[in-house]
């Protein structure tokens, strides 16, 4: 194929702008593309650019087909699949790169730009923060400008032609976008299920606890949820956010255990009501977090045996809900049908040294309360250390932790304390969730991060029900009062934002978080649920009514925009003298004295003076100056300015003061 049409397809500077825009589109993807694919994209873009500017040859059909197959095989080898988010994005990028080498006609170029739009969307599967919103506007603007340029069949000029037109088009499209975003009916997803790799990047509490998995989660600065309190937030020591409750123990791992299908446990309110809203980040599990102990919630949830809140499907999008919690409560004072044995179960023969320790204490202690105190005191008296980097335990984890390493994170303390209590005959279970939370003064809300992940213990006491005991608080009170960053030694490298020491970067981070929190709350969390709520509040609960309003609003907005766009704006004359004269004529026409087509300026002025003697001075001066400037060829810029200024301040009234119009 000859290179002639390739070189002529796009002026090379437009081609350059196209490559630059596509680079901007794919740049965020480079973070999660295999490096060889990024290299392919760079090479194909460079090749296509040189084909356009230097007349290089493009590969023929067979080579392209071969490259496509090779690239697809590479993607499958790298990701193990074709489908799914990562593999899909990789395939799209590959297609874009190879399409560039096939870009021979305008039609191909249009397809490349459409692929670019599509790649912009895929980026939102990875991140949806405010930065991305800016990036969306920027890339759509660039791609639209290019779309306009490519569709102009005549040759455009300039480096980035039609940038202004694209910006205008986008600005005009914003109101339409807003109407559609709010009113277009939302269908709850997913439509075809989500491949596994979506969950991989999502951090959150797991359904089970072994020594080591929470400390791993706590390495992350990521936001778990944000909370806005209706009144004062609770003191740090009360900020326990309840998550999965684990009661089954196999000697190493704590699990929820089989649901026992009994009625949810009873909870008695004793006081300390708290009302707040939570915006929960997606964590790909069914847990709904709330302050210990939730009694009312605005979304449908089920309360399981351990009084943990669960949704029927996993939280894959940001959701928002209102909760009422009570800080003083009595949870399940009567176990009822429930067999307390499950809360006492420890595998036979495990943890021999712990068993020995407990039987020693049992002989000393007067009652169970004394024994609990003894066990907690043990954590304080012995050289236990609270650390984010606990040593790996291989054998009998509880024994090894209690008697040898003595260094652990919350799950070590909670897990071993629960085991000790069970061995002492006190029903015990582990509660996981988050502890703490930091008030962001910028937005006046609380941020709870993954680094606040925590585990504690609940003991069942006759008459009092389940009571929270947090052994970590006995080892490291700072953890509860000041958070993770202040509790663990600096050499553990706790995540930056978990350290509460003030610094500029921290202040900026908090401000950025506040902005993103608004963005999350009003834009990203707007899904089927929030739409339903809003529509009901607006009286549009019925979907037919909603669609009618949507259609009407769209028509109105589009109509208004069309009026603006189609408004005829005649070209103004270049010459300021001419412009001033036209303005003068328009002024006179407005008071009922338009210039007749056959009238020259002199005749017109004469007639005006005849009909409106009161305006004679102005009309005389203006017409004379105009005639001088226009026809004598000796006008000065000052005179031009004087004419314009005179016309500007000349405001003839409809009737002369104190006299009737001569026409009547």
């Amino acid at each position, binding site marked *: 194929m000859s290179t002639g049409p390739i070189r002529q397809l796009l002026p090379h500077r437009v081609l350059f702008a196209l490559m630059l825009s596509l680079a901007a589109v794919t740049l965020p993807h480079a973070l999660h593309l295999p490096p060889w694919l990024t290299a392919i994209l760079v090479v194909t873009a460079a090749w296509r650019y040189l084909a356009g500017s230097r007349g290089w040859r493009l590969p023929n059909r067979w080579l392209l087909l071969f490259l496509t197959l090779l690239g697809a095989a590479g993607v499958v080898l790298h990701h193990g699949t074709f489908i799914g988010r990562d593999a899909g994005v990789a395939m799209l990028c590959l297609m874009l790169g190879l399409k560039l080498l096939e870009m021979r006609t305008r039609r191909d170029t249009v397809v490349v730009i459409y692929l670019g739009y599509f790649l912009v*969307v895929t980026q939102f599967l990875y991140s949806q923060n405010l930065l991305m919103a800016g990036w969306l506007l920027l890339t759509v603007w660039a791609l639209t400008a290019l779309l306009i340029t490519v*569709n102009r069949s005549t040759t455009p000029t300039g480096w980035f032609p039609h940038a202004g037109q694209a910006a205008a*088009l986008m600005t*005009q499209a914003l109101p339409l976008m807003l109407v559609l975003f709010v009113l277009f009916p939302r269908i709850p*997803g997913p439509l075809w299920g989500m491949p596994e790799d979506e969950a991989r990047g999502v951090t959150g509490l797991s359904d089970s606890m072994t020594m080591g998995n929470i400390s791993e989660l706590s390495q992350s600065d990521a936001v778990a949820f944000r909370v806005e309190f209706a009144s004062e937030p609770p003191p740090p020591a009360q900020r326990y956010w309840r998550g999965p409750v684990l009661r089954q123990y196999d000697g190493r791992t704590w699990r929820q255990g089989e649901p026992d299908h009994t009625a949810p446990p009873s909870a008695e309110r004793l006081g300390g009501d708290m009302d707040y809203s939570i915006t929960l980040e997606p964590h790909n599990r069914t847990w709904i977090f709330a302050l210990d102990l939730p009694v009312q919630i605005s979304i449908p949830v089920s309360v399981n045996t351990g009084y943990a809140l669960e949704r029927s499907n996993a939280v894959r999008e940001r959701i928002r809900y209102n909760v009422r919690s009570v800080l003083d409560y009595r949870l399940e004072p009567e176990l009822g049908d429930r067999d307390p044995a499950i809360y006492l179960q420890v595998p036979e023969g495990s943890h021999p040294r712990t068993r020995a320790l407990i039987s020693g204490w049992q002989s000393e202690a007067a009652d169970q309360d004394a024994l609990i105190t003894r066990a907690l005191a043990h954590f304080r008296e012995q050289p236990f250390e609270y650390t984010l980097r606990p040593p790996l335990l291989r054998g009998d984890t509880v024994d090894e932790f209690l008697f040898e390493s003595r260094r652990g994170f919350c799950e070590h303390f909670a897990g071993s304390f629960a085991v000790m209590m069970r061995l002492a005959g006190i029903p015990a279970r582990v509660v996981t969730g988050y502890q703490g939370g930091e008030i962001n003064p910028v937005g006046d809300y609380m941020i709870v991060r993954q680094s606040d992940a925590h585990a504690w213990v609940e003991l069942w006491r006759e008459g009092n029900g389940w009571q929270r005991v947090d052994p970590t608080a006995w080892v490291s009170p700072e953890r509860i009062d000041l958070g993770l960053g202040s509790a663990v030694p600096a050499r553990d490298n706790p995540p930056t934002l978990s350290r509460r020491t003030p610094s500029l970067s921290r202040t900026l981070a908090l401000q950025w978080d506040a902005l993103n929190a608004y963005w999350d709350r009003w834009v*990203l969390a707007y899904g089927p649920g929030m739409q339903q709520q809003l529509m009901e509040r607006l009286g549009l609960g019925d979907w037919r009514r909603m669609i009618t309003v949507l259609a009407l609003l769209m028509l109105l907005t589009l109509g208004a925009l069309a009026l603006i766009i189609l408004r005829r704006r005649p*070209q103004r004359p270049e010459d300021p003298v001419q412009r001033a004269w036209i303005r003068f004529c328009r002024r006179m026409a407005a008071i009922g004295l338009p210039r007749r087509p056959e009238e020259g300026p002199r005749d017109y002025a004469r007639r005006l003076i005849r009909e409106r003697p009161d305006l004679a001075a102005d009309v005389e001066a203006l017409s004379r100056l105009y005639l001088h400037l226009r026809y004598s060829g000796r006008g000065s810029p000052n005179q031009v300015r004087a004419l314009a200024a005179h016309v500007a301040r000349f405001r003839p009234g409809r009737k002369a003061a104190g006299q009737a119009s001569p026409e009547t």
Partner: protein
Amino acid sequence: MSVVGSVFRGLGKRWIDRRLGAPGRRTRLAYRRIFILPSRSGLLFSALLVVIWLGAVNYSNSMAFLLCFLLLGISMLAMVHTFRNLAGLRLQAEPPRPVFAGEEAQFPIRLDNPDRRERAALALRLPDQPAVLVDVPPGSDTRAHVTVHAPRRGWQPLDRCVIETRFPTGLFTAWSWLRLETRCLVYPAPEPGPIPPPQGTGPASGDRTSREGDDDFHGLRRYQPGDSLRQVAWRTLARGQELQTKQFAGNARQGIWLDWDCLSELGVEQRLSRLCRWVLDAENARRPYGLRLPGQRVAPGLGPDHRDRCLRALALFPA
């Protein structure tokens, strides 16, 4: 089936003609005369939007919804912008230059943009023909030439042609039909090859007597555009008669008569073709010539205007 089809086509054409209004030399593209539909790439774009929307629903992704709706908004406005690119445009057919049969007639059409915004990438074409692309800068005008093959001599009208645009986004095609009243004069095709001109044949030899001198007054004839002002008969004009040109015997010096009657062995079109050749050759040779056709006569003369007069007579010679 085909009957129904043709009935519909007929109705469609009538509906369109009604919308378009009466043909004229100039026209303004009013709103009701502009038609608009999504283009093929517009359909592809809507497929892209559907895919993005499905993805947004599946992943409950608000930003994907935002982008989807932004692009939808842009495409809706693109319709208005594409419409605007044509609306209010003024078109005027200008007189085309005559051509010889078998050549391409070029119809100049002036596109006048009275507005402050540029109208870019306007395509003017006859149905099933390649388009002429023009931009019209704000407040100014541009000429586009529509090319029509002119196979036969006589008047070649300009068929209904289409002005269309996809600018700015290519998602929509807006178009209108132009029925401009304009026609191009098509001369007969000159017979190819050198044909020796008639030598002293026919009545042209009868003019030998008038060879005496340039200034010998020969008579008056009606003034025709292109005649020299020096030869205008001012005196008769002053007497209130119409504008007349003085003819001198010298004008026909060495002149020849190109005579229809001396070509009796040829058919009508071949005769016209040969006469056309002779006219061109004589003009090239700067040799005065006159033309004699049944029922009309062009007195001998020379120059582009004279040539055009002769060619016109040939072109419009009744078949």
